[in-house]
């Protein structure tokens, strides 16, 4: 088998191993749309990265972190219903990103690659980013696991019990931002949040503890990556969407099993 497909598999598996457990929290906290908004904002990060000539991963992390801080602030002042606010931020940041890219005439950007992923073009440098970033997120997630579970169940109860809620929420947002940055190349900004929530949702029926659900979600995600890449190899389908399709199929199968019981 060619080297590039092995690199693609290593990249995809590296991403889902952290995206899926983190996605479990996104599902439990009913923040699917929030993840989607941050993912859309990644394109603005790419555009600014090109414009200012900084590392694209870094630019995406910074922009996503900035957008999540904005969201926190706007939520605090209750300016608008949350879903409206998210909708505005998601699509305006995506559009501004596209406009900024269009203005840079000298630039030939593979837009489709950023929107839907280009996993077969993963470079060794990308792999370093993915596994390095992934390990960082994994370590941070382990460190805040218990307080994060506590605030997911009830924020104010956790705060009264001594959990530093603002800090934990901030770490959570930064972890999501980092995961978005490293998974952009795999499935693209439009599909990233699916790699967080679909494996988690598929794992729900097989788990009775939060830890189980996160681990099973990681396995489901890895399976989806391998299956999606395989399909892409044999039928020459686009790799990113094939991975998402594979995880959707796994999700549907998990429902069949729970219905049979």
């Amino acid at each position, binding site marked *: 088998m060619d080297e590039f497909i092995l690199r693609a598999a290593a990249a995809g598996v590296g991403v889902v191993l952290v995206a899926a457990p983190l996605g479990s929290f996104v*599902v*439990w*906290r*009913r923040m699917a749309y929030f993840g989607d908004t941050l993912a859309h904002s990644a394109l603005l990060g790419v555009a600014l990265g090109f414009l200012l000539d900084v590392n694209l991963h870094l630019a995406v992390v910074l922009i996503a972190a900035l957008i999540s801080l904005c969201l926190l602030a706007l939520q605090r002042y209750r300016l608008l219903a949350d879903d409206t606010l998210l909708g505005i931020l998601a699509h305006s940041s995506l559009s501004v990103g596209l406009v900024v890219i269009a203005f840079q005439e000298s630039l030939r950007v593979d837009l489709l690659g950023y929107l839907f992923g280009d996993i077969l073009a993963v470079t060794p440098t990308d792999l370093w980013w993915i596994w390095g970033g992934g390990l960082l997120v994994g370590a941070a997630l382990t460190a805040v696991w*218990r*307080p994060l*579970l*506590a605030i*997911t*169940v*009830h924020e*104010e*109860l*956790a*705060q*009264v*019990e*001594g*959990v530093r809620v603002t800090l934990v929420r901030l770490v959570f947002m930064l972890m999501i931002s980092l995961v978005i940055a490293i998974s952009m190349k795999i499935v693209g900004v439009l599909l990233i949040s699916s790699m967080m929530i679909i494996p*988690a*949702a598929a794992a*729900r029926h097989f*788990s*009775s*503890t*939060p830890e*189980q*659900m996160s681990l099973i979600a990681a396995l489901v995600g890895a399976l989806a990556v391998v299956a999606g890449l395989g399909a892409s190899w044999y039928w020459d389908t686009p790799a990113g969407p094939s991975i998402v399709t594979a995880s959707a199929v796994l999700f549907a199968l998990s429902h069949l099993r729970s219905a049979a019981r």
Partner: protein
Amino acid sequence: MKKGEQLVSAEGIHVQWSGRLILEGVDLSVTAGEIVTLIGPNGAGKTTLVRIVLGLLRPDRGSVWQRPKLRIGYMPQRLQLSENMPLTVRRFLRLIPRVHLSGFDKVIREMGITHLLDNPMQSLSGGEHQRVLLARALMRAPDLLVLDEPVQGVDVAGQAELYRHIGRIRDFYGCGVLMVSHDLHLVMATTDQVMCINHHVCCVGHPESVSQHPAYLELFGRPVDDGLAFYTHRHDHICDEHDAVTEVGSGYVDG
């Protein structure tokens, strides 16, 4: 902790939210061994006052004092857990930082929830859910228990039982109890003080003795010990806003 020792006090609390006055000049204090029940119509500011006492919210004006090293056991209103979160009762109770295992076993026995430990949180009935929440509040061996609508979603028999539990907890630990009641007239019988608030303090007093109340006798047909009491409001001034709320028609207020 001595009975009668001051645990928390709030003085002259003012809270405004986007131009609307939520609380105006409210004083409140809870001492060890005392049960204080807050009642008032929906939107009267009860939960806001509780959040201020808990230190979750800072008032625009007024001061809040907590006894140094005060341990608060907080029972929030019903949890809104996602159906997608696999969480057993045991796991929920262990989420609290620094719980001693001996205390854990004692509390679950006291609250009668041993048989529920391996059930998912989402499968509990109203009464079971509230007992589990109360157990979590007790895990910290609190000096002050703060209960936000503890009998919400519980049938009348279950309410009486829950109130008996709370009374026993107060007697046993000697802690102070501050609770919000969802009912304007039916409160816990052993409440020492009932505060009716509607943005300001409307009236403060003792609940009537249960056993003497004809309406109670009619309802239950036998006297005492069920833990519920009627509270008769004695407003010494006209509560304008109180009436305004009635007109808007929550259908909840008639006093």
